């Protein structure tokens, strides 16, 4: 077998093992920790009978190992259990929400990834000159504010202040003003339903996309800049320059093949980050996705829902990291052409 296939197979097996271990950890996190789940759901004033009933319903009267395997067995068959709070099937409630979450993350990624790589390239091209410094200063600011606060800052300035500003611009004709107001409208609530067309949906999530883009952009830009600088400063690039090769040729045959792996890695890590960042942003914009569902049920102490959401988020996160690993193996010229 080609050594590279072996490596990829190893990574895949490792990823599956990791997801399995993560499921144990998530389960343990909600059941072995100090604190009686039934007690904390029902509160201090619960009667002993109600507590006993709830424990039986949760299966708390069985040993944790049995409960874990019952749960895992169900999950593997697509049965995530039922929510304690409303008795609905979790898998059913989750499917449309997972779709919404991925929809939001997808559009944020479509905008953020090319932008981050372009800005990273600009920062490298003008290293230590003003474009680089401006980009660094802006990204330092955006990573120093929590995501949800960036969300509210944008709501305040774009959906509240901007229309007022446009209204107050006396020199514009009424027609222009009307056009601006109609087209620069940023909704502070991201509605989403099946009857909306794709364009309407995207318009509705403009602000969340902007917030996520800003947040991910900063991380991705910084990492891209570091990755490209790392390649451009290596000895073989200097050799190629000294040989008198043209800039294009250097980039095409020397820099690019070696830069793909780190850049793809950066992109994947940030996509993973994006999927988690979505959680908080969904709450800010009341977006009907998985993150809001999770947060809602954490405060309601609905353990089965939390376990299911936790497992799905962890799986997506581990999966994206796994893809990053595999891509960097596949694109590594040293591994592709073993001696």
């Amino acid at each position: 077998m080609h050594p590279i296939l072996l490596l990829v197979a190893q990574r895949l097996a490792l990823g599956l093992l990791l997801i399995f271990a993560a499921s144990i950890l998530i389960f343990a996190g909600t059941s072995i920790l100090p604190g009686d789940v039934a007690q904390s759901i029902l509160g201090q004033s619960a009667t002993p009978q109600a507590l006993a009933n709830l424990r039986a319903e949760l299966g708390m009267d069985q040993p944790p190992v049995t409960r874990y395997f019952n749960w895992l067995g169900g999950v593997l068959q697509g049965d995530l259990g039922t929510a304690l709070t409303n008795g609905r099937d979790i898998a059913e409630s989750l499917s449309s929400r997972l779709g919404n979450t991925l929809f939001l993350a997808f559009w944020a990624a479509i905008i953020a990834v090319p932008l981050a790589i372009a800005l990273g390239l600009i920062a490298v091209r003008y290293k230590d000159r003003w474009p680089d410094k401006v980009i660094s200063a802006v990204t330092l600011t955006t990573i120093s504010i929590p995501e949800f606060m960036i969300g509210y800052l944008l709501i305040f300035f774009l959906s509240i202040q901007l229309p007022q500003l446009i209204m107050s611009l006396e020199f514009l004709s009424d027609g222009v003003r009307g056009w601006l107001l109609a087209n620069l409208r940023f909704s502070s609530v991201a509605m989403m339903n099946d009857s909306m067309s794709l364009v309407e949906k995207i318009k509705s999530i403009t602000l969340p996309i902007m917030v996520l883009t800003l947040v991910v952009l900063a991380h991705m830009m910084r990492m891209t800049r570091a990755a490209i600088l790392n390649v451009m400063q290596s000895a073989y690039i200097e050799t190629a320059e000294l040989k008198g090769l043209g800039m294009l040729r250097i980039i095409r045959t020397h820099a690019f093949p070696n830069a793909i792996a780190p850049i793809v890695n950066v992109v994947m890590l940030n996509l993973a980050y994006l999927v988690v960042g979505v959680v908080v942003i969904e709450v800010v914009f009341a977006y009907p996705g998985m993150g809001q569902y999770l947060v809602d049920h954490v405060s309601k102490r609905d353990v089965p829902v939390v376990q299911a959401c936790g497992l799905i988020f962890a799986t997506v996160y581990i999966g994206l990291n796994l893809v990053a690993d595999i891509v960097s193996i596949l694109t590594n010229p040293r591994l592709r052409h073993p001696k």
Partner: protein
Amino acid sequence: MRIPLAALIGLIFTALFFGAALFAPLIAPYGMAEIVGDVWEPPSDRFPLGTDSIGRDLLSRLVYGGQTTIFIATAATALSFVVGSVLGFFAAVSGGWIDQTLSRFIDLIMSIPTLIFALVVLSVTPTKIPILIVLMGLLDSTRVYRLARAVAVDITVMDYVEAARLRGEGTLWIIFRETLPNALSPLIAEMGLRFIFAVLFVSTLSFLGLGVQPPQADWGGIVKENKEGINYGIQAALYPAYAIALLCISINLVADWILGRTTSLKGGRG
């Protein structure tokens, strides 16, 4: 020693924030949960930043909120450093299966996003400040562990550690007398970044309603309490964002300077 301008600005603002947190009762014009005016009053002489959603003085809330947020973040950072660095040094000095087991376990915890893990645990634990601190500290200690172990592995192969081992010193002696002093500077720079992360993290949890509980003030909670006001053009919810940004940027500037100093002094290693 000359301190560069950026680092000096960072140091001054960091000191101001910590000073305000320490002396919050002296600085805040009103009590933390005292209702003193109308709902969302605009800034005036009586209320420099206006009032909040139920008529408490916003400046006082902000000062006390800073105290809570900075206290929790400091405690969590301290805990993560004690746990992370002791375990990291222990793994590096011991080596072998102890190192392998610990490192793989830490890898596993890091494979689940921190926020998701915290949410899972918070769904069954009561939301009290000590629990928040322990949870944040332990989750973040994984990052410290990685750094501490990486630095300590380099130190452990040094001659002076070898000499200490041959003298018959115990593992603990080596950790505290040989490894720790030599690993201190990169760890201190990392401490700044972990502190920033803790501030952002506790604010996020409080914003989600899973961190500090009202009437206790904290920066994330102030956003949650006043977010409705934004739709009426009231800035109350945005002040914590400015405070957090200023604090985090200041600490970043200081951490950058410390990191730059240690790398240039000791050739990339602390």
